[in-house]
């Protein structure tokens, strides 16, 4: 499935975790009319690294992501941001232009003679073959978000910024989207910053989980789960407990959590 795109240089992919950060944030502060939101954020993301950003509602996750996307014309503040020009943003709403057909949405603003062909391949990659000529309204919410994903990946971004991209989707669609995003980010290896409020989503997808609190990075936790159950499930549950604790939320009842059958055998529960 990852063949259709031009693969990233192998050398970079293999040395990714050791290389220079592609995203570098130092002492970032942002405020809206006297209301301080970010207050000295430091963050590095390396090529191919997938970072999830967690935090309570209103803590400034979107503000940080929009600063990285250079979309914060209204905010005041200072600090240093180094972010590549080739960056893509995925919003919570798919944000397709309703007056453009699916393929035209994907290749919007894309130059080059092969733009259409690249768009078609991108749609193939997000498992939407043959939907090039559909209108956005003819697609389900999950399909629209897959088009948005194709639109962001067809640009071969060095950094992918996603603000709760699956927040509006139903639980089953979200699980499918997790698998898709994981596969695509492994194939294309952009630096990813995924804003989410879903702890499981963060652990499932990210190499690192960063928690934002009171305008700063309050925790930076590596996710290195073993590949095999049962250890994986145990570590998953422990990590979730740790993250939820940091977010000030008590651990949920295991039974309310059907996505993780491993819970029920958690010896420490």
């Amino acid at each position, binding site marked *: 499935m990852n063949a259709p795109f031009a693969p990233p240089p192998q050398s970079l992919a293999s040395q990714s975790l050791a290389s220079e950060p592609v995203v570098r944030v130092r002492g970032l502060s942002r405020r809206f009319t006297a209301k301080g939101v970010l207050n000295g954020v430091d963050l590095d993301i390396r090529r191919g690294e997938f970072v999830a950003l967690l935090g309570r509602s209103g803590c400034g996750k979107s503000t940080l992501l929009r600063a990285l996307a250079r979309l914060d014309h209204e905010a005041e503040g200072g600090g240093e941001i180094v972010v590549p020009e080739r960056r893509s943003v995925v919003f919570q709403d798919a944000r397709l*232009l309703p*007056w453009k057909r699916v393929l035209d949405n994907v290749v*919007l603003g894309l130059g080059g003679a092969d733009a259409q062909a690249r768009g078609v391949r991108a749609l193939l990659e997000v498992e939407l073959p043959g939907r090039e000529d559909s*209108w956005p309204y003819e697609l389900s919410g999950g399909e629209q978000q897959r088009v948005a994903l194709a639109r962001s990946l067809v640009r071969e971004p060095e950094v992918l910024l996603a603000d709760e991209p699956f927040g509006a989707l139903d639980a089953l669609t979200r699980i499918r989207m997790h698998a898709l995003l994981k596969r695509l980010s492994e194939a294309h290896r952009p630096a990813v910053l995924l804003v989410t409020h879903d702890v499981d989503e963060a652990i499932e997808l990210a190499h690192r989980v960063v928690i934002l609190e009171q305008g700063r990075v309050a925790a930076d936790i590596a996710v290195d789960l073993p590949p095999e159950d049962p250890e994986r499930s145990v570590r998953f549950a422990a990590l979730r407990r740790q993250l939820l604790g940091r977010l000030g939320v008590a651990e949920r009842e295991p039974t309310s959590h059907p996505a993780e059958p491993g819970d029920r055998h958690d010896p420490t529960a």
Partner: protein
Amino acid sequence: MRAHSPALSTAVLERPTAPAPALRPTAAAAPPRPVRRLGVPPADPLGWLLGPALLLLVWTLGSMSGLVDARVLPAPWATASTALDLIREGRLQANLAISAWRAAQGLAFGVAAGVLVALASGLSLWGGYVFDGLVQVKRSIPTLALIPLLILWFGIGETMKVTAIAISAFIPIYLNTHAALRGIETRYVELAETLGLGRWAFVRQVVLPGALPGFLLGLRFAVMAAWLALVVVEQLNATSGIGYMINLARTYAQSDIIVVGLVVYALLGLTSDLAVRQIETRALGWRRTFGR
């Protein structure tokens, strides 16, 4: 109701004193009460013809019974035969062509100017400063109140008439197009920024198509405004056109010709509105509400 569920009703009869359990048999036996539909059901596309048909019926009955004096309002059949006479003489077509040409010219100039000024004012800050206030001032003066001035400037000929129609059409085109251009959603602006669209690509791919529904709504109002202005300028001092035909008929107390003229105005208004709506359906196929 009980007839539908003999078993359950028997059970009730056998144990009349039994306390009602959570699921009372009568409740289970009763067919579910249909949910009352509160919204108006979808309309038949030809349903709107009923009102005009009723009007025609009342008119016919009134004329047949003699309740309506023919000098006040001629009978439908008299009006129809007058219309046929006018067509045979060629007067109706000639006047209709002149009226339609006036309206079309005025509409064309008004729409073109409205779009250009709306673009200038909607797409640039300074354009807005210059033009929007001007148009708001103009909007508060009814176009028909400008006609005396237009007569002084252009005389009573075609130029004055077409200008008055153009100004009438200009206003709704400008207002709706400008509002649509300025009302483009910020989320689409943000999207365009993240995709690195240039200024021109942004206007062409995002702003203009996004403003199209507003423009088309303005076009419908403009068409109506153009017919209204046409009627007024033709009443004033015309020597040709449907309005002239009506005015002449008034001088000779030919109420049947007046009614024919009014029917022609109605048909012109209806068909042109239908035409604009056809354009809407074609151009806005991407909207869920259209093309379905």
